[in-house]
């Protein structure tokens, strides 16, 4: 009887309540996310200049022009994103595994310790890294005093500095989904593997790793996408040889005030990301990811 009443009650409410509840949030996202995207698409097909104003002329060649001009920065960004994703995965997996499997009652404490540094503002963290990696800073200055590296050795303004800055800043986006996926794993599956005489390595590669793939996938997206689009790390830790596509887009919009070029570059960036994510999803296999 109770179930019947709930069903009827549910059905009656279905008619209008969910729409009323979702309306404000949906409207906000529509007006300030979907509409701006459409606007930017229109802008990317405009011609003109800041003085004469812009008119929509469906000028598709802009895309080819900005691709020719900035493909180096675009591919560099995608490459940095790949390296960063791989580096965060290699750093986070052993840590997430240990916390999920051996953390015991202190699991939550360890996880919160991973998150804690990220309470400090993003810009301050990045400026701190700039300071740590400086030519005569606490890291290199000390190593040079000890004679461990040569006087001319540099880290700042190199691809290594940019990639390590990105790796640092996006690490928790990889670590948390990995932890959730590994923690969810039923330990008796591993016991079963051991009972069937699999070695620890085999058990890991045949049981733990495949079952944690959804976490690997989620973490990779959450790391790859923001790091490809980032321009703060390249600005504070890099040089003109590490310029990323985000730096170019920022310059087009804020310095050159060339909105069509900036808009077209933004869509090229998204296209690049979509292609990479699609290839990645296919290589992992969709069945594993939904499991």
């Amino acid at each position: 009887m109770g179930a019947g009443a709930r069903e009827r009650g549910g059905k009656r409410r279905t008619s209008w309540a969910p729409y009323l509840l979702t309306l404000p949030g949906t409207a906000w996202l529509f007006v300030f996310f979907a509409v701006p995207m459409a606007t930017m698409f229109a802008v990317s097909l405009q011609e003109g200049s800041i003085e004469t104003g812009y008119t929509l002329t469906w000028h598709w060649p802009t895309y080819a022009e900005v691709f020719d001009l900035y493909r180096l920065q675009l591919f560099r960004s995608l490459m940095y994103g790949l390296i960063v994703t791989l580096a965060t995965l290699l750093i986070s997996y052993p840590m997430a595994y240990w916390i999920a499997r051996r953390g015991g009652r202190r699991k939550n404490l360890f996880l919160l310790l991973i998150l804690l540094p990220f309470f400090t503002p993003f810009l301050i963290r990045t400026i701190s890294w700039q300071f740590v990696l400086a030519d005569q800073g606490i890291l290199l200055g000390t190593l040079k005093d000890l004679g461990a590296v040569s006087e001319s050795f540099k880290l700042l303004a190199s691809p290594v500095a940019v990639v390590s800055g990105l790796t640092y800043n996006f690490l928790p986006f990889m670590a948390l989904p990995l932890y959730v996926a590994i923690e969810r794993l039923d330990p008796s599956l591993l016991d079963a593997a051991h009972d069937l005489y699999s070695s620890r390595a085999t058990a890991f590669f045949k049981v733990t790793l495949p079952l944690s793939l959804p976490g690997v996938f989620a973490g990779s997206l959450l790391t790859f996408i923001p790091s490809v689009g980032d321009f703060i790390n390249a600005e504070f830790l890099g040089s003109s040889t590490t310029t990323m596509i985000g730096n170019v887009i920022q310059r087009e919009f804020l310095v050159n005030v060339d909105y069509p070029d900036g808009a077209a570059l933004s869509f090229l960036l998204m296209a690049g990301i979509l292609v990479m994510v699609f290839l990645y999803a296919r290589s992992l296999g969709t069945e594993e990811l939904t499991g």
Partner: protein
Amino acid sequence: MGAQQAEVGSRAMTAPAPARRRRRRREWFLPAFTGLVMAYLFVPVIVMALFGFNDYRGRFNLVWQGFTLEHYRNTFGIPELTESLTNSLIVAATSTVVATVLGTLVALALTRFSFRGRAPLNLLIFVPMATPEIILGVSLLALFVSVQVPRGMMTIIIAHIMFCVSYVVVTVKARTTGFDRNLEDAAQDLGATPWTSFWTVTFPLIFPGILAAAMLAFVLSIDDYVITTFLAGGTVTLPLWIYGISRFGVPAQVNVIGTLIFAIGVVYVVVSVLRSRRANAPPPVLTKG
């Protein structure tokens, strides 16, 4: 099922001794590695905190010259910095309240009703989170420029609400998905109206989730540089001010404010660990999915 588990457990207990010893010997690597990574995560934080106590001369706070509490006494001695912090707090507080209300309503609808249009709605919530921040920023800039809305505090708040809503929906949904509808039915069987049962049963149960979502929205908003820079006009928020001053030497007051924000994080962690130990449940911020 229970018997099966017990059997598996007992077999694991009686595993041959050499295997067990090998397992124990290998165990040092993972904890040591985890410890190293955690130390690495705290490197920039320690540097930041340390140089908030540095007694430096001139503009550049780069070399350790002695200990002082002067910057803590004089935290709000730079009017522009204080103003930018105030702006950031206004933006973060407003966007947190609005985004939390909007997002919670959507999350409730998604977990408690089945209705047409769920799939496109889920997409509309997910896609902004999977879009690089810079794209969110420049597309809003393109919109505001083409409809000739002047940029300032208002446009910053609009943008912050937009990118926080999705995170609120996801966080609150994680909390409401496991919610036991029977509790509400019980309340209604005992004569409560749907309205009463919502406020006396449902809301208190999902409140920790709402609180965690609000916390997340506040942190995302107060920390945002990328989106804000495109929409700020003449309004300067804390990250924008730090960015502007970084070329001329960051004053130690920035380190102090960063350290204070970090300290709030420490308090939050301590409280949630203590609370979860008492309730024997994971802290709300981590119950994702």
